[in-house]
């Protein structure tokens, strides 16, 4: 079991009438890339800011390397990558890094070495002397990350680090994060890109209404929530106006899409044995199947299962 480097216990925070955190509890382990997921307004950013020492908790505690935070200052072991691209647009990439490195206490040769390292890791070395104003969104995002990891923090907090960037930049960003994790840095990131979290993060924490409602690896979350069923979606050749019961067997969890009655969805634990009888019932009902899609349980399905389909804003 890896060492816990950051733990949040029963964190509570209220802004006026709005409850932002309502007892959130989770931990971050050494060298892991942990995804913090949640709908808009769930409390992710408040949690990140509380860990960063920018929000004082009303209750609970946050410990970093077994030290309880006072909630007034950022622990030196932390690197912060805010949601906004928090860099100076008129400065070059190198000048931005030099400025933030210097404010983190780096000087002289150590500063120059870390600036080169950060530029290299984020793929900006050949554009280091250009004004950031000229950069694409993806390059700015990468520089935003570079400014947060420049001083070699042992824990990095990233608030939606890949929002608004192209797939190439996203890949590059996650490569950097994975490399940091391999070197022993612990990373906590918030994102709305569930496929990315599923593919790139070792564990996931899902937060809603200010509280952690699930946490674990994807496999653990699937077992805790939607189970191991596969979702089978069939597209019929014509709308089906009959009852779903005609197509459903005793063991099926089957439904017909209300807005498009050509779509039939069924959740099956064993597709190999469950699909042929369903195809046969469709044929007997006078319909043919145009297309079949089989999907395993995903973080998306876990997330929707836990947080529902209702809009939050």
């Amino acid at each position, binding site marked *: 079991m890896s060492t816990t480097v950051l733990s949040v216990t029963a964190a509570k925070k209220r802004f006026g009438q709005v409850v932002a955190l309502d007892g959130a509890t989770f931990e971050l382990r050494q060298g892991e890339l942990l995804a913090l997921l949640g709908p808009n307004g769930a409390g992710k950013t408040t949690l990140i800011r509380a860990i960063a020492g*920018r929000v004082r908790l009303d209750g609970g505690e946050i410990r970093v390397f077994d030290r309880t935070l006072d909630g007034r200052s950022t622990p*030196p072991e932390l690197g912060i990558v*805010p949601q906004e691209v*928090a860099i*100076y647009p008129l400065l070059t990439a190198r000048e931005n890094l030099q400025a*933030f490195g210097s*404010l983190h*206490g780096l000087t002289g040769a150590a500063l120059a070495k870390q600036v080169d390292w950060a530029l290299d890791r984020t793929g900006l070395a050949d554009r280091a002397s250009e004004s950031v104003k000229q950069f694409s969104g993806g390059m700015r995002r990468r520089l935003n990350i570079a400014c947060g990891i420049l001083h070699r923090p042992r824990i990095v907090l990233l608030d939606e680090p890949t929002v608004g960037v192209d797939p190439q930049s996203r890949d590059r960003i996650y490569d950097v994060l994975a490399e940091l994790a391999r070197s022993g840095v612990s990373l906590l990131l918030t994102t709305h890109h569930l496929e990315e979290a599923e593919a790139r993060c070792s564990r996931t924490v899902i937060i809603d209404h200010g509280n952690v409602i699930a946490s674990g690896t994807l496999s653990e979350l699937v077992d805790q929530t939607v189970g191991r069923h596969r979702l089978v979606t069939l597209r019929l050749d014509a709308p089906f106006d009959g009852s779903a019961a005609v197509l459903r067997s005793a063991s099926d969890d089957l439904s017909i899409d209300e807005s498009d009655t050509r779509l039939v969805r069924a959740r099956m634990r064993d597709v190999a044995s469950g699909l042929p009888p369903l195809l046969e019932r469709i044929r007997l009902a006078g319909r043919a199947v145009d297309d079949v899609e089989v999907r395993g349980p995903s973080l998306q399905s876990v997330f929707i299962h836990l947080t529902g389909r209702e809009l939050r804003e």
Partner: protein
Amino acid sequence: MGTLLRIGFINLRRDRVAQALTFVLPIVFFSIFATVFGGQQEAATSSIRLAVVDEDRSEVSARLVEGLRREKALRTRMTEDAAGKGKPLDRAAAERLVRAGDLPVAVVIPRGLGASFTQRGFSGGGPPVQLLSDVSDRIAPQIILGLMQKVAMTAAPDLLLQGDMRRFEQYAGALTPEQKAAVDSWVPMLKAQGQSGSSGGASSGSAGMPVTVDVVDIMRTGNRERSLISFYAAGIGVMFLLFSAVGGAGGALLDEAEAGTLERLLSTNIGMTGVLLGKWVFLALVGCTQLTVMFLWGRLAFGLPLFSHLPGFAIMTIATSAAAAALGLVLATLARTRAQLQGFSTIFILTMSALGGSMFPRFLMSETMQKIGLLTFNAWALDGYLKVFWRQAAVWQLWPQLLVLGTATAVFLGIARLLARRWEAV
């Protein structure tokens, strides 16, 4: 077209800053300028402060002094103490008062004027009355000049008559006893008329003036026009210094807060106090450079005497820039948004500049407006520059301005630090 009008109207209705700039700002400015300029005529003719030095101590000089004191347009001061106590003013003390800017004009009635007056009457020719003036105020000496002649003619008509009769006898022979008795019968009547303050006996069509008046520029600046340019350089410079300080502070705090760089700065070792001090020093340095460029341009283009006043200029520029930068930080920490800052600071700075003398010299405003002006940042800064370039004051004499600007800087920084707590951990 209708849709565009509707969109424009809704936007204006919901944008309070735009409403303030469109409707409130012009009214505020109209009111300020109406007060400043509207009161000007009254101020110019009703409340000129005047020092009077009576070196002659004759009946004539006493009558002149009394005549000046009775003038509603003047507020005369005869003693070293402003409240009317202490020693009577002598020429040196009166000159000091004018030089220090306490009064725009001093009148010195020279020894021998009374004797000449009673001997020569309307033909004049006696020792000239001196008007010690600070010619930066071009209006007050001219008014005093006119009033002096009026007072001379109306305060002592009996003595004037007697003087003229003596001159008449000198050239035309002695009057007969009957003629002399007739003239003498007029004297008490004229004396009573003079002492009652009536000006009915004075004829504006008189051939000559009973007293000669010399206007003396006691500032003795080598080149007055060029020294006055320094006033305008400071006036405009300080106003734009405030604009740039507010703009810079807004950029430093509000824009950075919006962009997220402030959050990032606060997650480093520097802390909010460090951020504010860093921004303040930067803004003050930019302000110093801005004013220096302005004065250098004044030197190059208009011959402003910058290099002969460098120490005073340097210390006033540093103090003014430091205070302006701190004020900029207060306004930026007070505002919630850039638009709010822009709207509010435009009204605030233009108002301060109008009252504080950046647009219209304070010494030409009414005394009340001058006092109100002292509540503004601009007034203290401009008074300091005026002392350096116009009154040729030594650096130590700038202490009141430096004290006020220094205290203002400390207070502004304290307020900005308190207001900036909203960006710290919540």
